């Protein structure tokens, strides 16, 4: 929203020593953010007054002219299409480099073979009106070479206010409201708005005809004020009116439309003027299902029975609070108007505006809950100004004013001791009272320590209701900077430690620091195409109602799709690399968090997963096993035995023979697998990929339930080492062999694989394995014969069980 400083000065006298930058700064710290201070003249930068010196036909184009204009310093050749050009005229000339309000940047150009060094502008090109009939001809005041801004006396300063920061302040979307804030902030007197409603006694009751209005949807219309005015003469607005609108980026249209806009920008109440010619009766009602109206923006709009319309007895005239219809549009032939100043239910206006995808100056104001007291004030202001602009107008009806339930005033008891407790510092009683009064609050009675405060109507629609709201009013005017910060004195208490969060951090540290993986933050949303490529069944995936796109319309149940993408986008920069992610996945099943406090319904089940992906040249599968094993040993104990057992539940993207379940202390916590080559192809992945996905919640449970591990004393007697190497059928698994060996005898304390071979030196279907075996006793030094006997028995046992064939070294 744009606010004109000149306009504000009508209501509050701002001393010269208060600079515009100070106003902007103080408004920002006390009320609402001023995003920008704009010099009005800047919008006419590089536009000057020129005089037409030469004028002739363009040799190559019938409708174009070649013009030479004098801009004092130099003479410019310009190609121009207007047909109202005359020698000697003074005209606005945009020089090379000027930016017009239409967005056009003026550049030197060749038009049909002739050089053009600028542009002579029409009214609409300068944002000054709608006229595009010909170039704008300036009056005698114009001096050749002066800036156009100077000619226009465009010396205003415009404050650009952030609309978003006004969401709860319906009173501020206008000049008077901001003037009130400025008067309060700087403690300057504010003129009462009554001073601007100068209607002669009896004007409003000068006519006897009643205006026929029927309010059918009384739940959506809180107040409806209207009056009929005759003898209207539609014409261009006077300069003061046009200039005021232009200053705040509103394009002048005609005197009636301009006045409705002017009043809205001044006091915040949207007004609507109907051409009354065809209107016998006004009905405020809900639209019929699929009723249509052609609106002022030339759109055919289809309504529902939730939308409110202003209708004649025949057809809708306007969508209430949003936009008028073309049937009752003010035109050059309009003679009689009905002026509407109404107050509609904010939430309903918002709904309709949302549904139609249409926001207007009116709807933006209505949807914030306007003060219903405003309707009559705005209507009177309109009439006051109309009399000034067109003295011949006549009131043609009595004032219609439907206002069944004026809201009750809000009274708040403000306890000063309580206020001090909330702020943390005493603000003198006099200051508190003064601050509130400056903002229009009324202090009714002052008891010892309690102020009885009445909220002004313009703050009472939804903004200020409870004492806490007054704390803000007092504080913001007093200045947040005036409050001395002070840490609270709190009871010293050991906070409950979030073990899961610490574990997350530890896992991330290990994976980054010791496994050289990169941390991905992938989206929680996935898409069908992506899942299809992974052959993942998504029939049970939760969906978004309103996704941004079809690639992000489902809630992920696995981190795999995101991780695959991490590989895909980086594979051209790197060859051997990996990622991990530790984040939530979502399921279509009841979870354990309550949905609300009234029922036992719960949110869908959500858990955290840890996903790791590796790509590269060789041994991916085993490198990933190493990473997972190292991680688990680090977060649990160095003795933790992490098992990788043949998986039963293998996802469709995994190679069946290279998919293992990750088992820790007897519990399955995840899966580790190599990705199928055909999946690689689906994603155009260049190198093999291995993935592990672990249920972090289960893992955390295991970590937190670890039994305290007892230290075992360093062995007093030395271990005896023997190696064993044998050939065995390939399908016999290491896991089984190892288990058999380590469980064979109590003296066998450690088994370590140190070589695996499979290849031409062996028969097909055979592999050779070599182990270091450690024998140790806790109560004596072992003798060689003793160890040899056990080893012999072991070999015999393995032979029986697996038909091993010993190898010699």
């Amino acid at each position, binding site marked *: 929203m744009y606010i004109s400083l000149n306009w504000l000065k009508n209501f509050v006298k701002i001393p010269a020593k208060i600079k515009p930058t100070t106003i902007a700064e103080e408004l920002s710290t006390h009320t609402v953010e001023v995003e920008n201070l704009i010099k009005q003249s800047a919008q006419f930068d590089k536009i000057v007054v020129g005089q037409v010196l030469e004028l002739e036909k363009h040799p190559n184009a019938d409708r174009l002219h070649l013009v030479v204009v004098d801009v004092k310093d130099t003479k410019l050749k310009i190609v121009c299409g207007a047909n109202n050009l005359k020698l000697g005229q003074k005209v606005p000339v945009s020089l090379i480099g000027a930016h017009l309000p239409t967005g056009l940047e003026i550049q030197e150009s060749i038009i049909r073979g002739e050089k053009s060094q600028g542009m002579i502008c029409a009214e609409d090109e300068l944002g000054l009106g709608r006229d595009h009939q010909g170039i704008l001809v300036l009056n005698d005041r114009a001096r050749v070479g002066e800036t156009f801004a100077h000619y226009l006396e465009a010396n205003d300063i415009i404050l650009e206010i952030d609309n978003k920061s006004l969401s709860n302040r319906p009173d501020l979307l206008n000049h008077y409201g901001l003037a009130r804030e400025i008067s309060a902030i700087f403690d300057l007197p504010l003129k009462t708005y009554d001073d601007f409603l100068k209607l002669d006694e009896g004007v409003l009751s000068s006519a006897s005809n009643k205006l026929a209005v029927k309010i059918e949807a009384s739940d959506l219309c809180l107040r409806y004020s209207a009056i009929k005015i005759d003898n209207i003469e539609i014409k261009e607005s006077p300069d003061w009116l046009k200039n005021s609108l232009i200053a705040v980026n509103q394009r002048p249209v005609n005197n009636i439309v301009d006045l409705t806009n002017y009043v809205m920008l001044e006091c915040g109440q949207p007004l609507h003027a109907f051409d009354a010619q065809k209107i016998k009766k006004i009905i405020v009602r809900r639209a019929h299902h699929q009723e249509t109206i052609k609106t002022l923006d030339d759109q055919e709009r289809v309504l529902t029975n939730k939308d409110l319309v202003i209708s004649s007895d025949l057809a809708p005239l306007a969508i209430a609070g949003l936009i008028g219809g073309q049937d009752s549009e003010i035109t050059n032939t309009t003679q009689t108007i009905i002026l509407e100043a109404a107050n509609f239910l904010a939430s309903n206006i918002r709904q309709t505006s949302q549904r139609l995808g249409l926001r207007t100056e009116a709807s933006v104001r209505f949807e914030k809950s306007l003060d219903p007291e405003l309707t009559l004030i705005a209507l009177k202001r309109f009439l006051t100004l109309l009399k000034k602009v067109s003295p011949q107008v006549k009131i043609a009806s009595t004032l219609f004013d439907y206002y069944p339930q004026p809201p009750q005033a809000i009274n708040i008891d403000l306890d000063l001791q309580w206020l001090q407790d909330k702020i943390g510092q005493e603000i003198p009683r006099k200051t508190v009272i003064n601050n509130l009064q400056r903002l229009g609050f009324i202090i009714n009675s002052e008891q010892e320590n309690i102020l009885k405060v009445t909220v002004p109507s313009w703050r009472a629609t939804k903004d200020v209701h409870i004492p*806490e709201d007054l704390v803000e009013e007092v504080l913001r005017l007093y200045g947040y900077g005036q409050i001395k910060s002070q840490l609270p004195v709190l009871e010293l208490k050991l906070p409950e430690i979030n073990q899961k969060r610490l574990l997350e951090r530890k896992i991330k540290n290990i994976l980054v620091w010791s496994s050289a993986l990169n941390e991905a933050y992938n989206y929680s949303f996935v898409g069908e195409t992506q899942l299809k490529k992974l052959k993942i069944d998504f029939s049970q995936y939760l969906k978004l109602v309103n996704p941004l796109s079809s690639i992000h319309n489902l809630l992920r149940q696995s981190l795999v799709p995101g991780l695959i993408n991490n590989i895909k986008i980086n594979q051209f920069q790197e060859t051997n690399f990996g990622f991990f992610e530790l984040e939530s996945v979502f399921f279509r099943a009841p979870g354990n968090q309550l949905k609300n406090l009234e029922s036992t319904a719960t*949110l869908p089940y959500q858990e955290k997963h840890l996903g790791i992906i590796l790509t590269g040249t060789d041994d991916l599968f085993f490198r990933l096993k190493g990473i997972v094993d190292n991680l688990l040993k680090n977060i649990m104990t160095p003795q933790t035995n992490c098992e990788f057992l043949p998986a039963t539940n293998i996802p469709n993207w995994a190679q069946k023979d290279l998919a293992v379940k990750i088992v820790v202390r007897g519990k399955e916590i995840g899966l580790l697998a190599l990705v199928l080559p055909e999946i690689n192809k689906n994603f155009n992945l260049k190198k093999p990929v291995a993935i592990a996905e672990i249920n972090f919640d289960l893992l955390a449970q295991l970590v937190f339930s670890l039994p305290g591990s007892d230290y075992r004393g360093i062995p007093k007697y030395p271990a005896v080492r023997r190696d064993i190497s044998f050939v065995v059928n390939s399908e016999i698994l290491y896991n089984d062999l190892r288990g058999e060996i380590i469980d064979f005898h109590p003296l066998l304390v450690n088994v370590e694989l140190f070589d695996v071979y499979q290849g031409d030196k062996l028969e097909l279907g055979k592999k050779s394995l070599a182990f270091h075996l450690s024998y140790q006793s806790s109560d004596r030094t072992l003798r060689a014969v003793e160890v040899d006997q056990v080893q012999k028995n072991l070999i015999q046992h393995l032979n029986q069980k697996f038909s091993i064939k010993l190898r010699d070294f």
Partner: protein
Amino acid sequence: MKDKLDQLRQEFLQDLQQVHNQTTLHELELKFLSRKGALSKMLHSLKELDLSARQQFGKLANNLKIELQNKFTEKEATLNINQTHSQNIDPTLPGFNFPQGHFNPITLMQNKLEDLFTSLGFMVLDGPELESEYFNFTALNIPASHPARDMQDTFYIDYPNEHQEYDLLMRTQTSPMQIRAMQKYGAPLRAIIPGRCFRNEATDSRHEHTFYQLEGIVIDKKINFAHLKSFLEIVGQEMFGAKTKLRMRPKFFPFVEPGNNGEYTCFLCQGKGCRVCKYTGWLEIVGAGLVHPRVLEAGGIDPKIYSGLAFGFGLNRLAMLKYNIDDVRLFNSGDLRFLEQF
């Protein structure tokens, strides 16, 4: 005798100058310092003197011995250094290559703030990312008609309740966890809630539909505005340096009253004004306020006995400022060229 000592010293120093490698060094040692060397002989010959002369020259001879020993060791050391040089190894060659992994910068930012607040006795809490309308909006004093509840701002889940209404969504803020925490722990309460949030908004260099917040809440008897201000100052100083100043402005959030924006002096230009702070000298970083009494009630806490303060940061924004990152989409991009810098 004294002359003999001086002469020996002169000879040693002259020979020392000629020493340029291990061989000549060894020769020097043999000639002067070994058991059969010149110095030993000299010390032997002292025995033949009478007692007083022996005392007089014994001292001198001993000093000389120490001096020569020192000079020798010194020479030996310089020779050792020169020797390495002489083998022609380039010490500027790189060390072994240990591959490095990298954190997402949001994690780094979050860890830093978690550490700060746990040191002040705060709990660190997590909440569900898929939330209910009740906790995300209603309990936080955001009524059904509030713009934030629009479909165009919030991702709703296609999983209607028994009344066929969509009442599940991706949380738009970490604040629903305020209510869950109050319900679970009651008052007094001191907690921060970091986490992933969502907004139904098309992405560009400045907008992301997935972003990260960190929110703090303190509930106790007589918590007030001065306390809030102080917490915000501490955060600013921790994040941007000890000289960082705080400026607060009014800002409407339904779940606090009063509600504020907190701005810190721009750490890039020290408040003088630059492109990043849009020439204001201030960076808008934090939303804050005193907890609205209706929110306390929704959390089961009596606002007549307790009051609270709350504040929240966008971790994306903090990271963007801290590392001068110009595109918010990079955090979720998984682009190694980005991650490798952290």
